């Protein structure tokens, strides 16, 4: 994710003076991926801030949280409902709230309020795997509209409904026999890149 964030929004092009990015992390695996993304963004000299209201008890994910904290990545204690505050403070939002495994997660708090706010931001949203709140197969009307989608492993059915600017797939780590077994037919990855634009 952070690699393509810099492809989609190279540092010099960001409108705000500071390369600030808000990373919104949900309670499960999608959120954990967001934490890892935030850490790499920091290494790449972006200024990520994390909102992670419902923290997973999983020890691996707790360690991801520690790694971010120790790298001086701030954790917001609440998400402003005033959308303009978000638009003013950040260049982009990484949506790591809900992934493909979510079951009506959007109905539950705090995700519902978060998604309601994200629907109205004017800065670009980068969604990890599935735009949060969308049905994994059918997509969603009236849900959030990300600018960039990063499909993990392979695009999910709902990606067909994606109308944003750039769609990347990050699945270079999949062994060949898995790719063949599920008939994934991934595109060629350029050079040593771990993401490819579709």
């Amino acid at each position, binding site marked *: 994710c952070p690699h393509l964030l810099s492809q989609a929004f190279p540092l010099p092009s960001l409108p705000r003076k500071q390369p600030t990015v808000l990373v919104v992390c949900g309670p499960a695996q999608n959120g954990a991926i967001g934490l890892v993304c935030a850490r790499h963004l920091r290494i790449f000299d972006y200024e990520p801030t994390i909102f992670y209201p419902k923290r997973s008890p999983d020890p691996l994910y707790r*360690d991801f949280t520690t790694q971010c904290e120790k790298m001086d990545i701030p954790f917001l204690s609440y998400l402003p409902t005033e959308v303009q505050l978000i638009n003013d403070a950040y260049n982009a939002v990484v949506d790591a709230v809900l992934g493909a495994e979510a079951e009506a997660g959007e109905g539950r708090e705090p995700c519902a309020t978060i998604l309601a706010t994200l629907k109205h931001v004017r800065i670009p949203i980068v969604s990890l795997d599935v735009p949060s709140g969308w049905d994994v197969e059918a997509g969603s009307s009236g849900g959030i509209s990300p600018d960039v989608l990063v499909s993990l492993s392979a695009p999910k059915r709902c990606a067909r409904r994606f109308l944003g600017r750039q769609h990347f797939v990050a699945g*270079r780590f999949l062994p060949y026999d898995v790719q063949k077994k599920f008939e994934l037919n991934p595109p060629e990855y350029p050079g040593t890149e771990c993401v490819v634009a579709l």
Partner: protein
Amino acid sequence: QEEAQAIDQELFTEYKFSVDQLMELAGLSCATAIAKAYPPSSFTTSQPTVLVVCGPGNNGGDGLVCARHLKMFGYEPTVYYPKRPSKPLFEGLTTQCQKMDIPFLPEFPTEAALIDELYGLVVDAIFGFSFKGAVREPFGSILSTLERITAPIASIDIPSGWDVEKGKADGLQPDMLISLTAPKKAAMHFTGRYHFLGGRFVPPALQQKYALNLPPYPETDCVLQLT
């Protein structure tokens, strides 16, 4: 050597990184550096074959990760892994390689000339920065053979057999060195063509604390070419 060990300790105890995480990033850096210095098209062998020699510790683990990524980058790696720790981490990495059809040699080629004929590059993932003291078999014989090959050698972190601070004038002379996290003292004695820095995971605060003075990595690259 102590500083390198201290940094590692902090990464694990203070920052709560897992060995798996850092090993994966380290191995990926090695494969990426190799791909930059020795693109498949540059090989004189008919296929871009690479022999990855893995030692008994973490350096060997880095080698296994590297082999897997090399395969994904279009190379044809073969692994020699004579002493395997019975820990889930290493067993997992071995399985991942095997399931990707990376062959594991049952024995080490006895003749240097045979290695030169079969492989366009050798990755030395035998000993790392924790290495101290005498070289135990089978690695003594392996290093003797490697000292006689003409194919280029890419060493992970420390040329195996070298003293981690002082080097070894009559030891392995690799063509490439991939220093992980930061170059070790021994790197001053490195005379090969390519020196890369990898392991782009050191938090800025830790870099300052140990005055690493690392030059900046380009953009989102996970490796930096030093020479």
